[in-house]
């Protein structure tokens, strides 16, 4: 078989194939649910209900989507420039560390001053975490997939060390947990009385800002040019190394904001389970969004909904919650295939 470009894809093709991919995913997940002894359709219903069925569920989904928007954006901007950042998890934790170091009473500033400082400190830490692999890539030609991946383990151990040492909460009864942030360092709620905090608002603002950067600025153009063909970009006068460094700062900073938002908004302190793999899930979010910053918001809401919904489904129907991961992995793989097939046609021979 070979692939042949489709010059002008019909709208049936561009909409139908992704829809088919989602349908295939749903059927596959239903089959697995049946295997687990539950009625397939009821399981899917329970997932939807658990994700958006009540005000509580909906807010939970928005809360869960918040860090995913940040990490999804981080991955999307990096992948667009073909900087393969698999280290959003590490950048997230370093952002959280920065937030905790400065936000637990060390600085006695008012919130209007303290919160931006914490966010900037987080961004700086996350940026450095990606600048090191980027430097190794541009200077020595070391593959950043491997280095960013390995750094995730290093950083997590580093955080564990901090939580059992200098950052340990003296009141924590021996549990590896940081002290709580001071009140001025907490992100306020969007609506008083609801759990949703301004981290969500910040995530939406970031998505808009990244969209503007990518589509309306020379920077954005240069990042895309480097991603499409670094050699051609260099030939055309794009400063490739500088562009990669800018991309790394933006990507690492965005991932670190996920850590800032989780600590300052949702949790109030740092523990080792701050992120159940938000950095890795960000890759799925970014791919489902086709690396489009506004699409990241939609994809993050979808992915968060699947996780939140699957959690409540698991409690109600007794189907293992790993179904959520299977569903997302299948959605990811079938979606990238479907999107490719909107642009290429399979020919025999």
């Amino acid at each position, binding site marked *: 078989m070979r692939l042949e470009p489709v010059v002008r894809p019909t709208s049936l093709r561009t909409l139908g194939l992704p829809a088919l991919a989602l349908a295939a995913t749903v059927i596959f997940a239903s089959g697995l649910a049946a295997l687990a002894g539950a009625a397939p359709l009821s399981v899917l219903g329970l997932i939807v209900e658990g994700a958006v069925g009540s005000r509580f569920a909906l807010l939970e989904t928005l809360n869960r989507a918040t860090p995913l928007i940040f990490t999804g954006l981080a991955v999307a901007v990096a992948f667009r420039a073909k900087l393969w950042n698999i280290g959003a998890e590490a950048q997230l934790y370093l952002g959280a560390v920065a937030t905790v170091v400065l936000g637990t009473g060390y600085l006695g500033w008012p919130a209007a001053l303290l919160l931006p400082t914490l966010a900037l400190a987080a961004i700086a830490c996350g940026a450095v975490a990606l600048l090191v692999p980027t430097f190794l890539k541009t200077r*020595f030609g070391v593959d950043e997939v491997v280095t960013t991946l390995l750094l995730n383990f290093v950083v997590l151990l580093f955080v564990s060390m901090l939580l059992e040492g200098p950052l340990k909460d003296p009141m924590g009864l021996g549990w590896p947990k940081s002290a709580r942030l001071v009140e001025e360092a907490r992100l306020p709620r969007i609506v008083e009385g609801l759990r949703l905090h301004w981290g969500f608002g910040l995530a939406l603002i970031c998505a808009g800002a990244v969209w503007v950067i990518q589509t309306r600025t020379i920077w954005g153009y240069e990042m895309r040019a480097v991603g499409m063909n670094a050699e051609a970009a260099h030939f055309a006068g794009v400063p490739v190394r500088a562009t990669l460094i800018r991309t790394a700062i933006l990507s690492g900073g965005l991932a670190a904001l996920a850590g800032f938002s989780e600590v300052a908004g949702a949790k109030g302190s740092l523990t080792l389970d701050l992120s159940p793999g938000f950095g890795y899930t960000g890759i799925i979010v970014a791919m489902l969004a086709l690396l489009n910053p506004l699409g990241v918001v939609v994809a993050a809401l979808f992915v968060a909904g699947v996780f939140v919904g699957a959690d409540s489904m698991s409690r109600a129907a007794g189907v293992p919650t790993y179904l959520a991961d299977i569903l997302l992995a299948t959605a990811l793989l079938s979606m990238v295939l479907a999107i490719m097939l909107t642009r290429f046609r399979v020919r025999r021979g």
Partner: protein
Amino acid sequence: MTEIVDILLSASFWAAAIRIASPLIFAAMGELICERAGVLNLGIEGIMVTGAFAGWMAVYSGLSLWPGVGVALLAGMGFGLLHAVLTVPFGLSQHVVGLGITLLATAATYFAYRLALPEVTSPPKIAAFTEWPVPILSDLPLLGPALFTQTPLTYAAFATAGIVALVLWRTPLGLAIRAAGENPSAVAAQGLSVTGLRMGAVIVGSGLMAVGGAFLTMSAFDSFFFEMVNGRGWICIALVVFGAWKPGKTLLGAVLFAAFDALQVRLQQTPLGAEVPYQIFLMAPYILSILALVVMSRRAAVPAALMVPFNRGER
């Protein structure tokens, strides 16, 4: 310092190093085959999880040990087939597909484990491979316990590395596989199928990764735990780069890495270990891997067509 010397001179240390290296050798050889043919397989971590479970589950449900290894191999080849179809003929992003496969394989395995053993709190044990001392050779000082008093799967790991080297560099098939990763157009000009070679390499390579995973449940431990692969797959990707895509050097890298891992466990129990946080010891192998990559990258011989899809939408 004397503690380190003592450790390095003890036979049990080297025996542990070889044991720890074995799963890495299997999986790294699998990754090496894939990359030599031009496909980066980031599914390795998940495929190892699947292999660990499939082999263990097969034995737990009554199969004997070697057929159990076969089941793990087949399970890995199944995910390899999926990876190969998506990345080779369809030319999808190898990063995305690989990470997708890792997520899918890991989640599917945990799902299957929960379905098979819903109520278990502590995982049941199987009668795993036992040590099989090689006559005479196992009596050698230091080398005997390290190299020749191991389980059969460890011998198989070393044999696999030899076979991979032999096939890749001494057979026409190996030449074709390497060429598929260096210059696929030339392979196609010879009338050979780049697609076939790459798919075959990914499927066989993924099978080996799964056997590496199965080593954990069938030879190192005797039951299956969540998180038991714990980043070993990612380490193998680093080992292949470290080994400059050559089996011998990759094997050496695996043994060095394992020796370091065995050393850090022992150092934690010395007075030095009481002073330094244990996380430093656990971090060291990863930092060492990164440093090794920096050093090796100067004369790296990356397969020229690695990660480049062949003939997508061309002709």
